[in-house]
Structure formats: C-alpha cells, structure tokens
C-alpha cells in the first residue's frame, strides 16, 4: 500500500501546469510552461507585467482554454471540470473589479452564497486581521479606496477556508502594515497544509514566504530554484568608503592576496566588491590596516537575481506619429 504513495507519478500534485501553451500571436502568450505545487508548499511566481503570470493563473482558474498542454488542480482539469474544484480554491485577481451598487457587506454575502460556505467565525477573524470595520463595509464598494477594495478581495478569497490559494499580486496597494499581516497569514496557512501559488512584485514578500520560486520571461519559465539556496549564497557584496585615494590604492594592492575578492566598481575613494565568506577575516584585517570611513554590505538578493534575467533591452516601437 505504501508503495503506491511513494511513487510521485501516482499522487497528483495539488497544482500542476504541464506544457501549457497559449499563443496570442506576435510572440505574446505562454509557451510550454510547466510547474507544480505540492500540499503545504508556497510557490512564488515572478516576472514583469506582460510576461505571462496572469495568463498562466487564468488558465489555472479555468477561465481560458489552453492551445495545448494542461492545467490541473487536485487532479482535475481546470477548464473542463471547474465546478468540481471551485469551492476548494481561494483566488485573488491581479486587478480588482467589484460589482457596482453593492455595499461591502452585500458583496461578502454574495460571495458566501456563490462559495456555498458560510463560515461566520472565519469571516470575523479575517475581517479583524485585515482591519475592515463595520463603518467601511456598510458603504458602497464603488466609494471604497483602492486599499480597502484590495482588503475586501483578500477577505472574500479566504473566508471559506479553501485548500488551494491562488494569489495574483495580492498585496499590491496594501500598506506596509497590512503587507506584514498578509505575510504572517500566509505562514499560518502554510502550517495548516494549504497549497499556495503566489505571484508578486514585492521581493521581500516572496523571499519570506516561498519554498520554491520560478521566474517567467516572454511567456517561458527561465529559472526555477529553491528559495533557501539563494538566501545562503556564500558570496557577499560590500561597499567600502576609504579615508582618501591613497588608502584605497593601498587596499587594492594588498587585497590581491584575497583569492575570492572581485572588484566590481571603483570610484575616487570607494570600491564596490564581492568576497566569499571564507575570506571575510582576511578582508577585515586588510581593511583595518588602511583608513576606512564607512563600510556596508549587501547580500545578493532575490532582486539582484531577478534583474539578471531582465537586463536586456526590449524594443516595442509605436511612437505617436
């Protein structure tokens, strides 16, 4: 019996995109995208606007039919069998359009009816966590500020306590306090075994929540990696400001002994360099023998890594003639 469970082929992934292609023409769309998310995992999805994140997500939500390939949630084809999984998914869209003419409370009620789940305890917990007060919810949705609408979308996506969370830039427009609450919430949900796909532009948010991260560019996945691998990179970056040009020159001369030191940028009396951790003590000793005015370090961050993939220029054309 255990044997069947151990084989990965036999247990469907909670979220699975395999060889998804949707060609919108002129190079736009997604091409042969594959990814999967297992139970209890948080998967980060990074890429600039227009790279194909939302297109992939919209296929996962069953809104759109693939040209080829498939998207499955809990083993069900999302386009054909959407109704079987609807009530297991919490979804926050990238752009929020709330129906007109409803108050906040009416919208919540409508969504509860659609979800066919009325978990009042959970609802009031969510409202408290995201600080949505009665006075705000009694007002019409069209008069709500962007941040409040976003909070409302977050609460309605989570109030039925779904197993799978698909979140398309969920915190865009939320203030830093709410973003922090949101991150705490994701940590809790992960502990409770939820399966989470999170697309975001906020690196710190991806960094602190995700187990695995994929980067998408021009409709194709260009990198997929384990989040921790990046966090524990052993090469670090330092900016050193010297007392004067002489001190800098002396340091550069002496530092030739440091095998792993790499000079990235040099200015009149400062340098930007990288050093492996194992050479850190030698580096400190050499710095201390010349005059240093200030010293700061930067770890290679998710942002640096991401930017590497997107450095090259694109040409869109289309000026006002």
């Amino acid at each position, binding site marked *: 019996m255990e044997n069947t469970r151990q084989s990965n082929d036999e247990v469907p992934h909670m979220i699975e995109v395999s060889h998804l292609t949707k060609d919108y023409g002129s190079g736009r769309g997604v091409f042969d995208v594959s990814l999967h998310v297992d139970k209890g995992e948080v998967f980060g999805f990074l890429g*600039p606007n227009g790279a194909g994140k939302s297109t992939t997500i919209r296929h996962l939500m069953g809104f759109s039919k693939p040209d080829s390939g498939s998207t499955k949630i809990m083993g069900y084809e999302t386009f054909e069998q959407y109704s079987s999984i609807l009530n297991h998914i919490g979804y926050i869209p990238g752009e929020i359009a709330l129906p007109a003419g409803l108050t906040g409370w009416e919208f919540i009620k409508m969504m509860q009816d659609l979800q066919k789940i009325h978990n009042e305890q959970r609802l009031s917990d969510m409202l408290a966590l995201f600080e949505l007060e009665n006075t705000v919810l009694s007002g019409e949705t069209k008069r709500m500020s962007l941040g409040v609408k976003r909070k409302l979308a977050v609460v309605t996506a989570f109030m039925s306590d779904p197993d799978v969370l698909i979140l398309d830039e969920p915190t865009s427009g939320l203030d830093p306090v709410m973003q922090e609450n949101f991150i705490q919430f994701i940590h809790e949900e992960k502990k409770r075994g939820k399966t989470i796909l999170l697309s975001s532009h906020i690196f710190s948010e991806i960094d602190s929540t995700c187990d695995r991260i994929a980067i998408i560019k021009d409709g194709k996945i260009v990198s997929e990696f384990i989040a921790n691998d990046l966090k524990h990179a052993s090469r670090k970056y330092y900016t050193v400001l010297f007392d004067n040009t002489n001190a800098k020159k002396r340091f550069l001369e002496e530092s030739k002994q440091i095998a792993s030191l790499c000079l990235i940028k040099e200015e009149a009396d400062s340098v930007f360099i990288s050093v492996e951790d194992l050479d850190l003590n030698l580096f400190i000793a050499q710095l201390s023998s010349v005059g240093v005015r200030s010293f*700061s370090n930067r770890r290679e961050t998710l942002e640096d890594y991401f930017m590497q993939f997107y450095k090259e220029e694109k040409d869109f054309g289309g000026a006002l003639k």
Partner: protein
Amino acid sequence: MNVIETQNLTKDYGEGRGIFDLNLSVKEGEMMGYVGTNGSGKTTTIRHIMGFLKPTSGTVFVTGLSSWEHSSEIVKKIGYVPGEIAFPDLKTGIDFLKCQADFLGLHDMTYANTLIERLQLDPRANLKRMSKGMKQKTALVAALMNDAPIIILDEPTTGLDPLMRAAFLDIIREEHKKGKTIFMSSHSFDELETTCDKVALINDGHIIDICNMQDIRSRSIKEFKIEFHTKEDYLRFLSENYEKTRLQEQYNQVTIRVGADAASQLLGVLKHYNVKFISELPYTLEMHFKNILFSNLNKEQKNKTISNF
C-alpha cells in the same frame, strides 16, 4: 515660495474619518513624499490639492490660488496621476493622449514621444484592454507631456513590476532635477527615500511627522550586526566597550551602535576575531517612522493610565 500649501485643511466625513488640521507646504523645486496606511487620508489630501473636493474648513493654495475656487486654472499647471485610473470612453492610447493635448492646448508632441519611448509604451493599444502597467504608463505620459511645473502622483508605482518601477522613478527624478515641484504618495519607503527631499507621515487623518531626508541619510550613528563563528569569540566581544543594542546568543550574533566615524576602529578590533558575518544596518525612513509611531503609542498609553486614575 510655497507652491503647494495646505492651511489647517480639514475634511470631516464623520465617525472620526477624514483629514484634520493638515499643514503641509512644498516649496518650489522641492519633492515631498507622503506615506500612511490604507484609509489614513492620503488620497483625500491629494484630491483637495487638485481642487476636486471642498474642504470642511481650512484652505489649500497652489501657486497662491485657492484650489477649490480656482480649480480650472490650477489643473493646467499640474501633471496629475490618480491612484485609480479611469480613462474616458476613447478607443486607443493615442486617441486619449491627443484628446488630452487638445485640452491643454499642446501642439508639440516631441516630449510625449520621448516619454513613450522611455517607458516602452505602445499607445496604439486599446484603452479598455490595457493592463494595469500600460494604463499607468499612459497616465504618466499624459501628466508629463505638457511640461507642467507641478507634478502630483497618487501611488504611481503600485502594481508596476520592478523594471517599470525603475523606469518610472528615473523619469520622476529627472523631472525633479529640472526643478519641478513634486508631491507623491507611496507605500514604498524605499522609493521615497531615494527620490524625496522631505517625507510627511499621515496617520488617521493627522500629520504625525515631516522629516527631512538629508537628516535621515546623514545620521551620525550607525548600527552593525556581527556574527561570530564560535561562542568564545562572541563572549569575548561582549567585553569590548561598545553600546550593544541586541544580543542573539543562539546565533552568536550581536548588534552594536557606533559613531559614524568608528568604522575603521571597529574593523581594527574585529581583526582579532573570527567573524562569520558583518553587516551595517542602515537607518531607514521606515525605522524613523516606526520609532515615531511607537513613541506616540507609548504616550497614548501613558495618557490613558493617567486618565484612568
């Protein structure tokens, strides 16, 4: 001269909601950032500056004119990007930009084209089907193409990806250099830090603090976080004469506070240790505001205990 000035600006929506007694001033050529939680009153303030809303009391002056009374005049002096963009019922981005140019009496589209290229915007796209990023770019072109002396931006980078955000902020910085007066709200401390001269913090409709970025950047105290390979080194370092702000024994980590000119001396001391990791913790705008909010909270609690007596 103050280009933008709010004098005791109050808009009371009842139940404690609104903005109260705001006094803000932005000088010519200055860039002011504006932060605060969702619902704290940022957009309400901006809509008063634009003259879209009538204050309950107090006045907003833009170039010396009352915004509410002279709305139609000041609107032409301001390049404005709203927080939520609703375009008129036109077909393409080009149609919208042309319509906007007509309204402003603008004939030379050279600068508009430069901006379009910089932002890599395809304005031929259908307005209704534009993604959030494209709408944002189109709105920015419309706001800046007239070379208006004042620029007002309501969370302009929300929803933009990191590349667009960088392109967007570069353009704003250039406008600032050209001498434009700029007022920008944002949730990103990071981007305000690198662009603004001053930043105001609003909380529950009240201005809590206005700080000068120069003071934050040139703060004369620094904090360093140091991690040692061994417990022995960690304990030995504790006996050195430094102000320690945080100890994390389980990681052999210590955070110390030193004067800005003490970097060299610190490195000299650390030479005699086996250091695993060292990092300077920069004093950020975020820390500054957190400290202020925290100390205000403490005051409130003290006041409460006093009033309970």
